[in-house]
């Protein structure tokens, strides 16, 4: 069981991390376009559309990744002080009430939305059009990933209800990794140049 949970975590993480590199691409692309437009006097009409697509893909595909590593912000003022079992019970109910209906909506309706776009081979509204339908398929794909990750989270809630202890998760980079920040402050040598 635990293996299955971690395997799905790994899948979400892998996909999220893969598309995370879109930020490097996005940065380079915007910078290149600025350079090209101002310095080389050679603007590209498709650049902004492509940039927006990169941004959309980046955050949509990272949704499940963020869920797998609990990066979505929570109002945990009460939550943090509950016992794991109560936490799991609340989560379980709310996954059923809030999460699955909305993610299902995204996946299901997103699939139709994208297929309609595919049927007419929709392009961006631009003198140099880009195909838009692959971008729209990001919605159902991200929704399906969230669905899978949601199932895993629900299973975690069930396990926690049984054990009164949250099953372990794999580690990931944290925004505030105290140990790492400590090392940063301590080890930084005084440099003179």
């Amino acid at each position, binding site marked *: 069981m635990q293996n299955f949970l971690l395997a799905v975590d790994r899948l979400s993480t892998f996909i999220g991390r893969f598309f995370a590199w879109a930020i490097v691409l996005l940065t380079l692309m915007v910078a290149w376009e600025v350079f090209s437009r101002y310095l080389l006097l050679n603007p590209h009409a498709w650049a902004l559309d492509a940039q927006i697509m990169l941004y959309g893909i980046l955050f949509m595909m990272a949704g499940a990744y963020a869920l797998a590593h609990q990066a979505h912000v929570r109002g945990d003022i*009460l939550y943090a002080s509950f016992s794991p079992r109560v936490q799991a019970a609340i989560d379980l109910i709310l996954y059923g009430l809030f999460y699955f209906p909305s993610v299902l909506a995204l996946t299901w309706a997103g699939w139709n939305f994208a297929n309609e776009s595919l049927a007419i081979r929709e392009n961006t509204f631009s003198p140099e059009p880009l195909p838009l339908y692959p971008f729209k398929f990001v919605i159902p794909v991200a929704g399906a990933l969230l669905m899978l990750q949601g199932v895993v989270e629900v299973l975690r809630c069930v396990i926690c209800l049984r054990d009164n202890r949250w099953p372990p998760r794999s580690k990931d980079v944290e925004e505030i990794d105290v140990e790492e920040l400590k090392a940063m402050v301590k080890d930084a040598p005084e440099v003179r140049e």
Partner: protein
Amino acid sequence: MKKLKPEVAVGATLMALILIGIAVLTPWSSLNNGHIGIIMLCLIVVAMMMGFPSAFTLTGLGVLFSWLAYRSVDPNIAVRQTLDLAVQRAYGVMTSDVLIAVPLFLFMGYLVERANLIKKLFHAVHIATARIPGSLAVATLVTCAVFATATGIVGAVVTLMGLLAMPAMLRAGYDTKLTSGVIAAGGTLGILIPPSIMLIVYGATAGVSVVQLYAGAFFPGLLLAGIYIVYVMVLAKLKPQLAPPLAEEARHVPLPPHLAAVAQRHGRLALPALLRACVAGDAEIPRRVLCKELAIASLPLAAFVLIMGLTWNALTKPDETYDTTGLVEMGVTAEALDQKAEGGAPGIAEPPAEEAAPGIAEPPAAEGATAAEATPAPQKPAEAAPAASHGAKKTSRLPTPPAFWKVLWIGMAVLVVGYLLLNFPRLEVFRMLLTSFFPLALLILGVLGSIIFGLATPTEAAAIGALGGFVLAAFYLALEKPKEMRRRWWPAWAVLWGIFLFSIVWFILYRAQVVSTPLDRTVGTISMLAFLLWAVLAVHQVKLLPVLTESVFLTAKTSAMVCWLFVGASIYSAAFSLLGGHQVVENWVLSLDMSPTQFLILTQFIIFLLGWPLEWTEIIVIFMPIFVPLLSHYGIDPLFFGLLVALNLQTAFLSPPMAPSAFYLKGVAPPQVTLTQIFLGSMPFMALVIVSMVMLYIWPQIGLWLPAQFYK
């Protein structure tokens, strides 16, 4: 059995009150859609406190309630409409040309954070401020403000300063409460002073231009930081026991031996002594080292000449109406400077002006030489300075405005006084600031300046800023490597940067109409590739891959958090509108018959209260769509409102029970520091936030003057 924690009690009471309120006040017998909308609004606060990820709480409530709304019209197609609405809203967030700047700014922040210069920054600022009262606290505030502004990551700044400044301050005998308040409040400044994510989020939610928000928030942000600093200084003066002055040895600036030797042999004042030593030579110290020191000492002069030269060029050029002083300082994002020049150049927009003054379009070579000399060779300011004034005399340009000469004389007087005061310890302090404070300040001002001056969109500036962050990280981490390694790298780096900078300088000269041919496309492409090659080389040589990877992953996670919250909030507010909730709120608020001031106070008070249990992201994405439409009834500028909200949300980080800054600090503070002490220490700073809000209310020009200069 453990005691009930106060935050639990507060939260539970609040939830219970809201639920009871809903149960009692709802007219259950005559329930209409508007009532359901209000119930939905109250439920969101309760649901948020349940601890479920907020993005999905919002999406879930939004989907459920929009289904209710559609069902009341036509049950047959309600499900389909609900699904379509959810997808349309999600797609709307995916194609937002405002939110696209969020991941880019996050990326920049994570890269700058990992450039690992906070220790140097704190050390340098601390030495520089050693003589003023409460120096350590002031240094902490300055470091926090600069670093938090550049990174925008409040948690990381508070944690780092908690590790770095807190032990130092406590050791120096500073009061625990003051110490924790300074760090918690200082770190929070990062979400206020632009470029900050919060203003983008507000702009995207309220439909206010992010550019104007950035311009508007600049001075209020500085004002708040200034108020903090003045408060600390006054407190240290009045109650020295809270913030004792530093011991003499802590103020001492350690001089490297060769500088001490120069000071001893060639005189106390840095510039003349170094000049003498450089010209005459020194028995023990190689000339190369001396010239390097001289170059550092003459940097302010060079910068002054460069700025005044470019300003003069801009002022006397036909049709150039505003000055470029703010932009010249950007070393990192030179493109923005170029764009500035384009904005001011006559170009296609106003051809008659050029025809009217045909001789002026091609400036004589003399000025060209001035700019050309000043740009690549800051080491030769002495020659460049007279050249600048000679150029002015034989010009066929517009007459130089008298104000320019005034500024020039004042600037020169300041420089002379500065150089008369510049002894070797001060030179050493200057050097420390040069390698820590100035790069960050330039990055911030470059990004912000290019946005405010309208040279780049926030997205473009953020991308260039992210590259700047990468360059910072590469150079700072390279400086931590052994010297022999760096020696091997420098030649390749210098060549690649040379090619890249060649294009930039060419472009500046082209825009200043010094050279008449635009940059060749092949050359330009090659120089961009040179930069890319350098980036790859730097990643390989300095072993930047872990830093880059971490920043990339964190950017993805945090962007997902912010943008999914937007997806949720977008669906939620659509449902709220569908139910007619806005109408009910509007009618109710208008029926209260408040004056604009009362309305402002009420909304700000509500936001302040919401800051107790909720975080700023949630407050903005849920409640701004409700407040902002009401503003027009009271004639309040949404921009001005946004600035007040931005100040107000500072308190959301500091107010118990849900005070992220305080918790971050507690996480790394020495064990004897209690959470209560941190809360108590933050209280005066929260009061100062309110003072700053009152000041902004009384003198709205603090915030509105700068946007008005550019966009009215």
